């Protein structure tokens, strides 16, 4: 990942947080002073490097830990509502923003709602557990499933 791609990645993340949604290639191109085609090419390289995730159309799908599309992991943090890609990422939203957060999801077994307040990095319900189904070496084989 070269310096211009890191700068593109950082600009994309900043804009995602500022807008509360995935930025378009046109919006990011304006910020970094290039054209949308260059942004899309850079995003593709960042996708290959696992620095963000594109969907099949080449639009932003994940700027991990944030999800650009609705998921079953909702987070309220820094005065905004977000979606996270998984349980780990749900905690990551508050970690990335360096703020307290509220996580809302449901238990995949019983489908009862789960609501967690994370304050100073500590969840208010220590009885819950986190399960990782697939080994770490395979996490990026199908990141949507992971």
């Amino acid at each position: 990942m070269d310096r211009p791609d890191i700068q593109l990645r950082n600009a994309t993340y900043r804009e995602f947080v500022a807008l509360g949604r995935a930025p378009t290639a046109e919006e990011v191109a304006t910020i970094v002073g290039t054209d949308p085609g260059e942004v899309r090419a850079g995003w593709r390289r960042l996708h290959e490097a696992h620095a963000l995730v594109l969907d099949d159309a080449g639009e932003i799908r994940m700027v991990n830990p944030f999800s650009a599309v609705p998921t079953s992991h909702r987070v309220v943090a820094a005065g905004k509502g977000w979606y996270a890609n998984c349980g780990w990422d749900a905690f990551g939203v508050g970690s990335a923003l360096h703020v307290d957060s509220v996580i809302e999801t449901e238990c995949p077994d019983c489908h009862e709602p789960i609501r967690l307040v994370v304050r100073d990095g500590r969840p208010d319900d220590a009885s819950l557990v986190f399960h990782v189904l697939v080994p770490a070496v395979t996490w990026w084989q199908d990141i949507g499933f992971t």
Partner: protein
Amino acid sequence: MLLFRSEDHVDRWLAGRTPGATVPISKLAELADAWWGDRLDPAWEPHTREQNQQILDDLGLTGPFWRLG
């Protein structure tokens, strides 16, 4: 990578599938801070695999299941 009410709920959900790894929620919170805490830093740099492995190791997430490569 999902949150469950308890280990019993994980077992029921697995329904005989091979389990992965179950981690207390407090450990997940620590992991998230270490893994994601720098993602919005203006001077963010990519983590190397070795850096990410060190994060897992430091939290006691060791063994073949947690090897990144």
